């Protein structure tokens, strides 16, 4: 599910053909996304809004799952 590079963590959640990528370093997330998009045909849906039937909304205090 994840890998650690230089103390940074990059957890990746994979379900069939859906991926959530998160991590402590923005550059590493971007690098991972570029790498994946070169390797496979996939689109970047930007910030998390929908995953496995759950909706996510960003609020001022944090992320709300509903």
């Amino acid at each position, binding site marked *: *599910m*994840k890998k*650690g590079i230089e103390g940074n*963590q990059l*957890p990746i959640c994979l379900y069939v053909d859906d991926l959530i990528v998160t991590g402590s370093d923005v550059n590493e997330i971007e690098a991972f996304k570029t790498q994946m998009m070169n390797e496979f045909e996939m689109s970047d849906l930007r910030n998390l809004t929908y995953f496995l039937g*759950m*909706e996510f*909304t960003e*609020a001022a*205090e*944090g*992320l*709300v*799952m*509903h």
Partner: protein
Amino acid sequence: MMNRNPSSSHAETNVKLVMNEEEEHVDPTLFKQIVGSLRYLCNSRPNIAYAVGIISRFMSEPRVSHLLAAKRVMRYIKGTLQFGILFPKCLNGKSMELIAYSDADWCGNKQDRKSTSGYLFKFLNASISWCAKKQPVVALSTCESEYIAGCMAACQAVWLENILKEMEIEVSRPIALFIDNKSAISLSRNPVLHGRSKQIEAKFHFLREQVNKGALQIVHCSTELQLAYIFTKPLKVDKFIELRSLIGMKEVET
């Protein structure tokens, strides 16, 4: 169902659902489908866990009053569609704090006199795990039912700690477990009150083992701050709304 009036609370405070032989039967298939869907919803809505737990006890022989209760839960969901669990932003360097609350009612089920236990886990102030469940054995005292609830929470705590370790997250130990019953707390530290606790099944002493090992630290909290209260008792609307926001449920605008 979609045009029904939304309801403000999920369960009636003063009504005890019981198995009533005289009441009319309802279609068991429909009832099971409703309960099944509601149980699925419990995965992301801790606020209905208690109500759904109660109605799912009548799956085998549903009657009119049970179906009405199920419909009430659906009306409540309709009124709270925009509610979700908040995962708060947190600052870097904050300690990886996992805290737990466990609570139990006593003899909540009037037919077999079994109690209901409930627990809630918060990680970095976000609710991540919860449960409302009828206990497998009859508890002889509130202390015993709280002790059994604490044991269930201890099992979950051990599992959660392991799964977080797998993700290379070191949880700060000991994990705090909040219980609002003082005798259950003393019982979890030492074999006290032997006369009234000797009947407790051996497996529930897992809680004491975890406490003595230092994995868990039991902390007393007042009933007002007991967040797991929402999983064990039907509440008045204002208390319910207060606890709902305390467990991190938030309304979003879309």
